[in-house]
């Protein structure tokens, strides 16, 4: 069953990818979607069996590497944590597959798209079912590859190519950390298998390791290195720059990879390694810090963006920040809970945005939309549901998961926890604000698009709206249904051994006993955010521009995304470009080519011309050469014999 879940998408990818031209667009769509749906059904069965039935197990497929102490197998480790991820990945992926049938119907390369989607799903499933770091890294790199291919899917667009390369490069930075982390694990524990790692982790507390010439706490160092990997994949502050640009890819890709699944791989990884992180409290503090910073940073930037997908992308970034600071305060289950609910409502938002873009003839700028809510009521309603869930309005999915995260942060009692809590509250306000800004600008007010576009506005076909409805159901009910098992009283039984929290650090328990104002505050700021948005954009249109004018430096600072890209451009891109140019022009061009190919060729020609001159045509020259030759040979002979 587990093998089926993981490998059916691969089969779909192979069929659609290699035989897509033969079997045609329609067949490729049917094959990939059908296999994906089967995989989803199997995942639900697996979830029932493993998570609800309390029956975690590992299926060994075959040995991969056996070399010295390194012993790695291909295996499918399915416990509750993995089962949750299986559900999330396969459900969202199936919906995106189906949605893509409609969304990509005019694209000339449909089989390629479907193959990439399925390939991505395979790698993602490989990642979440890994039972060792190497296999996880395999999936990790695989999703990176699929992400690269899909961001650059429209390779005719230079911006898409640039975005794909950027995503790949920034991820390399994170991956480098991840790799160092894996090496560090092997160095410390002589193993990369999770079970053995987790057994050995408590004994490593206090050990030192030499890293870059410094004696550092071994476990903290390794955990931080692994976290760098997570930061790259999950677009945390400083390594987040690729995610907004990745919106160059088709919208279903944004929904699947850059909202629901791949970007949460970092969260999953740290949760999976909770038995290690628990013993490295300093590392967890760093995680909390970066999570909180990302949450607020992305929310502020999201406020002023004008591209509908970029707003949602920054929102994703911000929500990932929430998950990380939940992890940082040891509320792993809350983080995964939010991961799941977020997957539903964020995929819903993205696909909804896709539906809007589809309706607006590929327009993405919300300043050029407006006044279309009557024309596409279904999409409008679904976007409302997604936004309500995102803003944490009570009884929608986001409400449950976001509240428990904030409560946990408060309940952790530590300084860094409170830091995260207040930033989280502020971010919650901003989240509500930008969500409604998006809704109002997109759907309300006077139409700002020209009449050609407006005439074309139409509701999307059923093949696109049905997946949206499925996701909307998740966005409404996932929180309510999952609360009890994920973070309620049933959590110990539900999670089993898949997540470790040290004795006396059970912040989830403490979170249930925080003061009432802490519980109410997120709701209040959420409502305030919504109200502000209404005030600024609906009741008094023009206020926003006035504020932007008055606070121009701040506005520009936010609009330019805190100038992080410019900073990187100055710090890294230019020096590296300069170095590259230098090595190319001077090193390769002048030195290597100059003395190498070009120089040799030039010298050869020169010598060739000189030798041709020797051939004078005069007999006595020739005879002279022969005599000289004999003399030289005799001399050479005699001298070489004497020596």
């Amino acid at each position, binding site marked *: 069953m587990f093998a089926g879940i993981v490998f059916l998408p691969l089969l779909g990818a192979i069929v659609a990818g290699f035989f897509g031209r033969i079997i045609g667009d329609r067949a490729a769509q049917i094959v990939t979607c059908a296999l994906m749906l089967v995989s989803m059904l199997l995942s639900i069965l697996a979830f029932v069996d493993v998570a609800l039935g309390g029956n975690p197990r590992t299926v060994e497929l075959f040995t991969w590497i056996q070399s010295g102490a390194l012993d790695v197998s291909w295996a499918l480790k399915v416990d509750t944590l993995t089962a949750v991820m299986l559900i999330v990945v396969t459900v969202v992926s199936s919906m995106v597959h189906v949605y893509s049938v409609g969304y990509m119907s005019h694209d000339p390369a449909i089989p390629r798209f479907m193959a990439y989607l399925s390939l991505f799903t395979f790698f993602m499933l490989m990642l979440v079912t890994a039972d060792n770091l190497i296999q996880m890294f395999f999936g990790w790199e695989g999703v990176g590859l699929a992400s690269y291919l899909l961001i650059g899917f429209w390779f005719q667009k230079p911006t898409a190519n640039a975005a794909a390369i950027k995503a790949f490069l920034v991820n390399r930075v994170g991956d480098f950390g991840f790799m160092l982390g894996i090496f560090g694990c092997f160095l410390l524990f002589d193993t990369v298998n999770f079970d053995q790692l987790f057994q050995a982790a408590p004994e490593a507390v206090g050990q030192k390791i030499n890293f870059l010439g410094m004696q550092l706490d071994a476990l903290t160092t390794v955990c931080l290195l692994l976290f760098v990997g997570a930061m790259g994949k999950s677009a945390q502050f400083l390594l987040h720059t690729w995610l907004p640009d990745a919106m160059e890819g088709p919208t279903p890709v944004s929904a699947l990879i850059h909202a629901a699944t791949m970007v949460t791989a970092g969260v999953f990884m740290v949760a999976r390694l909770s038995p290690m992180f628990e013993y490295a409290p300093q590392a967890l503090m760093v995680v909390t810090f970066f999570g909180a910073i990302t949450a607020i940073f992305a929310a502020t930037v999201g406020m002023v963006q004008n591209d509908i997908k970029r707003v949602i992308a920054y929102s994703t970034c911000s929500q990932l920040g929430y998950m990380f600071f939940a992890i940082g305060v040891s509320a792993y289950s809350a983080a995964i809970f939010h991961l799941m609910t977020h997957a539903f409502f964020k995929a819903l938002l993205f696909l909804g945005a896709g539906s809007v873009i589809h309706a607006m003839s590929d327009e993405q700028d919300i300043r050029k939309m407006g006044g279309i809510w009557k024309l596409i009521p279904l999409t409008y309603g679904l976007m409302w549901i997604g936004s309500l869930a995102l803003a944490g309005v009570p009884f929608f999915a986001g409400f449950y998961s976001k509240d428990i995260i904030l409560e946990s942060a408060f309940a952790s009692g530590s300084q860094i926890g409170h830091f995260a809590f207040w930033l989280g509250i502020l971010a919650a306000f901003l989240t509500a604000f930008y969500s409604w800004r998006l809704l109002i600008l997109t759907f309300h007010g006077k139409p700002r698009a020209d009449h050609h576009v407006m005439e074309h506005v139409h509701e999307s076909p059923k093949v696109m709206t049905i997946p949206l409805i499925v996701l909307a159901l998740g966005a409404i009910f996932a929180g309510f249904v999952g609360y009890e098992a994920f973070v309620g009283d049933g959590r110990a039984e539900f999670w089993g051994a898949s997540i470790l929290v040290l004795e006396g650090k059970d912040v989830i328990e403490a979170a249930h006993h925080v003061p009432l104002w802490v519980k109410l505050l997120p709701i209040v700021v959420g409502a305030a955010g919504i109200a502000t948005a209404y005030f600024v954009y609906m009741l008094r249109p023009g206020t926003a521009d006035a504020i932007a004018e008055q606070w121009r430096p701040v506005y520009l600072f936010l609009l330019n995304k805190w100038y992080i890209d410019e900073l990187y451009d100055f710090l890294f891109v230019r020096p590296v470009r300069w170095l590259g140019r230098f090595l190319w022009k001077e090193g390769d061009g002048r030195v290597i080519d100059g003395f190498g190919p070009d120089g040799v060729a030039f010298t*050869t*020609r020169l*010598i*060739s*011309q000189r*030798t*041709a001159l*020797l*051939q004078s*045509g005069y*007999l006595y*020259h*020739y*005879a002279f*050469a*022969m005599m*000289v*030759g*004999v003399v*030289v*040979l*005799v001399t*050479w*002979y*005699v001298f*070489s*014999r004497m020596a």
Partner: protein
Amino acid sequence: MEPTTLVLLPAIPEIFLACAAMALLMIGVFIGDKSLRLVSWLAVGSFVVTAVLLYAFTGWGGRELAFDGLFVADPFALFAKLFILLGSAVAIILSMDYLERENTARFEYPVLIVLATVGMMMMVSANSLISLYVGLELQSLALYVVAAIRRDTIRSTEAGLKYFVLGALSSGMLLYGSSMIYGFTGSIDFAVLAERVQGEASVGVIVGIVFLAAGLAFKVSAVPFHMWTPDVYEGAPTPVTALFATAPKFAAIALFCRVMMEPFGGIADQWQQIVVLISIGSMILGALAAINQTNIKRLMAYSSIGHMGYALIGLAAGSEIGVRGVLIYMAIYIVMNVGTFAIILCMRQQGRMVENISDLAGLSKTHPMMAVALTIFMFSMAGIPPLAGFFSKLYVFLAAIEAQLYTLAVIGVVSSVVGAFYYLRIVKLMYFDEPVETLDRPIGREMGAVIAVSGLFTLLFFVWPAPILNAAAQAAASLFAG
């Protein structure tokens, strides 16, 4: 020396061919220049008969002496003679059309080639310094005349004259060397020399060997005795060039091998340096000087200088494997060259011969089959696998490595890379440049056959190389048996 019975049997093929030459001369004299074709085909026929006789009287058996030990027939000589006959026969076949077209239809031409061939066969069978010289001169004198066969054109006569003067100089050197060797050892017989020249040879013998080697190096056109080659190749009528590039080269190299290995094999470590030097010089010059050539016959001249350099690698190794490498190299070299010259002979525009490399531009569009064949030959000469030329280089390099002549092998490989340039340039010209003026058609049946057979041999050598490899191995072994 006691008088002994005259043993002639092993020399029957040579005797037959010499008589055939006289008979052909008679026919020619009686019929006149109209008899060119007849005499030519009869000459080819007598080559065939000679080959059969060679097989019948000497075969792959042991070693037989004739003329009181002046003449030796062994598998080494047999191998060389077969390819010499092949080269000469093809040269005659290639020349018939040309001579008739260029108003040079003289019956003496095939007769002279037959005589030269007799000389070459004597050379490879020489077993003393005297018979060596006699064979060499018989060959050379015939060839001097052939080079100047078009005595009404300045270039041909100039080529013949240059060849003659320089050839005389080299003969002088060779004789001078021989006399010194005789003076210091007291013998001209190879077997006796082999006994006497052992260990540390005296300076006189050394100088003698150097002079002797210089004379032979002239015949194989190795640096620094190569200067005549480009001028003669360019000036001589093309079929004559084709002959020069093939059979006499094999004869000279074979003679070189025999002289260095049989009488002077005992001091191989001492003359090795000389051959290494000559070989390196030839390879480098062959590669570099050819780059700037515009005339294809001159280019082939430098190409052959380079090839002689590679062949001499095998000799420099001074071992049985080395000699085997030389024989394989020369066998393949002859075939490749025959094919290439056949194509050069087809280079005619509106009835007149053209010789510039640029005339080949766009050949792939006008004469696709010819272009393919020339491509095969060029790739093969550049030593690109799996063509025959690759194997020929492979075996000599193997021998050099075995003999620990690493420098030589490395220089050989490097120069073959440089040399690849001008071979590939021809291919580029044929396939990527636009034709300016197309070559004439048709190319003639004999030409087509020669090109096809040699092209197929070059292309498919790797499929079944055993016959030539085994024969060469046997031939080489016989040189070391005594």
